């Protein structure tokens, strides 16, 4: 079996969520099939500038074929078009223009799929919202599997993506909440889908003492791992933590990740910047709990890693995925206001028995659902199922409306569409086995 993993960026040193996800999946599926990665020459997701050479190379033993991006992203143009399709009634032509503006526009990658797509048994596309996934799925729809990595953001409400959600052979969801969102926005319940997520490789014996000695941090530790960004909820986190620390000093907030916003100067806040994986896991093991303040997550890998290390999680309750995972795992609490933040944080920090119990549950949840053998098995089972089942749709994608139809401004703003979608944690999966998935 030959598989193509199609993703917007790919590299051993890229730590973006979907990119890392795709690399993990490619490297683990390579144990069971022949895997080739199709990606662009870009490394910067802001500009999509061609920084790597086009052609063929090996990354961690996986063959990678890179294609150039034909045009870099114009931030002003992209912002203007985003406002147009997210906030205003618009047309399909405007959505397609937005997609081109977003990038990474790589017609050569699509051309390669068109010409050589038959050489792959299946193409696994990552991130529904990018150029490569939209046009690639339309080219290779009979062999296309999609890992949507969808969040509750306005792009999900664009009309052009609905056809892709209905047209792929299968969807590999990250969470039940993501599946509920996509089902609601595209009516694709008949398309085979499974909630998979992604595994993580956590060291068996992290050394928390090493972290404590290196940093000199004593007392209870709250840790955040990820890009320090306002979009990740860090501003709210800092605000809440400073208020909490003014009443209950002694707690230290450790930040791991590159800051893209100013970190407040506070004796209880310790930004450590980018650290190695070993240091990261040492720090997570030394922490009393992990804080995940992001309101938009399709799957938080660092949350899974915290659970793998037996650490409870305090998550932003406004993120349906995190909230749902906390409930399903019984391994974390969540907050939606400062009062809840303070109470839940105090509850976890002050109650060691509860902390330990949540950690045990997290570990069990991770072992049941997110270890690599489980993840690999879910992918392989889906591929076997697709092998057995004939494709239920025509080879040709749903045609776009004509010239005039594409320019008719009768589409609702993307944000308005998403706001109408069901919110909140998805209902329980009905057991831990993914076999219950359709």
């Amino acid at each position: 079996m030959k598989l193509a993993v199609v993703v917007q960026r790919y590299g051993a040193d890229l730590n973006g969520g979907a990119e890392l996800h795709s690399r993990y999946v490619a490297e683990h599926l390579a144990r069971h099939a022949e895997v080739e990665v199709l990606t662009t020459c870009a490394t910067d997701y802001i500009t999509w500038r061609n920084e790597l050479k086009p052609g063929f190379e090996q990354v961690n033993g996986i063959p990678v074929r890179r294609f150039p991006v034909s045009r870099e992203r114009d931030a002003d143009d992209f912002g203007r078009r985003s406002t147009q399709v997210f906030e205003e009634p618009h047309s399909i032509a405007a959505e397609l223009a937005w997609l081109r503006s977003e990038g990474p526009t790589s017609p050569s990658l699509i051309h390669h799929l068109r010409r050589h797509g038959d050489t792959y048994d299946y193409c696994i596309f990552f991130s529904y919202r990018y150029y490569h996934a939209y046009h690639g799925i339309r080219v290779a729809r009979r062999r296309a599997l999609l890992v949507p990595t969808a969040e509750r953001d306005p792009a999900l409400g664009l009309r052009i993506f609905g056809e892709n959600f209905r047209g792929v052979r299968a969807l590999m969801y990250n969470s039940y909440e993501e599946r509920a969102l996509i089902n609601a926005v595209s009516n694709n319940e008949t398309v085979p889908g499974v909630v998979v997520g992604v595994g993580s490789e956590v060291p068996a014996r992290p050394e928390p003492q090493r972290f404590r000695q290196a940093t000199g941090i004593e007392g209870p530790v709250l840790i955040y791992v990820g890009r320090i960004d306002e979009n990740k909820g860090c501003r709210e986190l800092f605000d809440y933590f400073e208020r909490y620390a003014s009443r209950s000093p002694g707690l230290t907030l450790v930040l791991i990740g590159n800051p893209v916003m100013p970190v407040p100067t506070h004796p209880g806040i310790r930004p450590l910047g980018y650290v190695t994986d070993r240091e990261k896991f040492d720090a997570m093991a030394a922490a009393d709990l992990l804080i995940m303040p992001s309101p938009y997550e399709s799957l938080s890998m660092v949350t899974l890693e915290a659970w793998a290390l037996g650490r409870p999680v305090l998550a932003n309750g406004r993120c349906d995925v995190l909230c749902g995972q906390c409930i399903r795992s019984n391994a974390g609490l969540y907050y939606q206001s400062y009062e809840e933040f303070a109470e839940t944080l105090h509850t976890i920090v002050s109650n060691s028995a509860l902390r330990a119990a949540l950690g045990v549950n997290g570990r069990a949840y991770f072992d049941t659902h997110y270890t690599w053998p489980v993840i690999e098995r879910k992918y392989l089972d889906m591929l076997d199922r697709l092998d057995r089942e004939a494709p239920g749709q025509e080879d040709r994608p749903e045609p776009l409306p004509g010239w005039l139809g594409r320019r008719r401004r009768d589409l609702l703003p993307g944000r308005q569409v998403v706001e109408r979608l069901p919110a909140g944690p998805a209902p329980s999966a009905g057991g831990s086995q993914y076999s219950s998935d359709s």
Partner: protein
Amino acid sequence: MAEFNIQADSVDVTRIMEQIRQRIREKRGTDYTEQQIRELATVKVERFLDPRHVRSDLVEHYRQLEPPAALEPIPHERAGRAPGPAPEPVEFDSHTIYMSSRGPMGKLIRLIRKLLNPILRLFFNPDPVVLALARQGEINAWMLQILQQESDLAERVTKQFERAGAKFVAREELDALNFEVLNNLVVEMTRLSLDMKNHRMLVESVAGRLDFDERRARALESVVQRRSPVSPAVADGEVDESTSSTGSGRTRRRRRRSRRRPQTAETEGTGTDNAAAAGTVTQSEATEPVPSPGTATPPGDTAAPAGAPPRSHGVPISAPAVEPSPADLQQTPSPYAPDPDSAPAPASVSAGEQAPAPVPSIQGPSDAPSPAAAPATERVPPAAPKRDVGPDDQ
């Protein structure tokens, strides 16, 4: 946070969150009233309305602001640049170049010119010149029309500007009025702030007095309650009802008598006092032994040996500010006791006091307010003196 009884498999995050949210609701209900929540909600508005945040030099600062320069009317036409009367338009056509203004001779001249026209054309073609001049005449007429329209427009704009200028003048007058209002507001806010401080101090003063009075009342009640359980008068159901609140003159007298007991022992039991005159003396006074001078008696120390001299010490009715021990009350006169020379008030005497004279009138046990209060004191309504008593023992 109350500890959960935790087994890992028994943890229910949903239930924990419900508990936490319930606790937050309870905390809000306890800590914050609805009024407080509303105050918190409007705190940003109040920051601007709070007189404490008004700059004291605001008026001065406002006064120092330079007023905008007065608007000068824009002259419609500057002197020396008046365009003057418009020139008359000249009509130009293909025949104009041949015309002459010399009357009948001119016709001949025009004829000659026309005849010579072919020769003229040998030198140059006059037709484009004629055409250009004719077109220029049309253009001039057209420009004149446009200028006329622009002039009308400028006139209308000028009128609009004049109207705006009038508004600016009115605005300047309004600014002066605003300044005056602002000035008055600052003055009034300052005055209100001072008044508020005064009232706050007044309230604190009243609260202090009230607190003092309450503590004094409690001290009195506690003294009476401590002494009453061993009182023979209680056993007999003969207790003065007004013990805890009235009759200070009686007490004062008894204390003084107690101090002079060694010298005036022979007068005990013969005289009466103002309290007795008021008819509110308990029978227990006749049986209460008297401790030796200068000896503090514990509250329950009423079982004096038989034959001991009768106790004649008095309990100060007005209690000190802090609740004293009964011994202190016996030994230290209250600075707040009323003047014994003042009009006699209905006296109250503790159950342990000795009555030097028969009790004129005593309410029966049926007047006891409650079973709980009955052992301590039984309230006896003040009665009018039935007879004129003898001289005071002082």
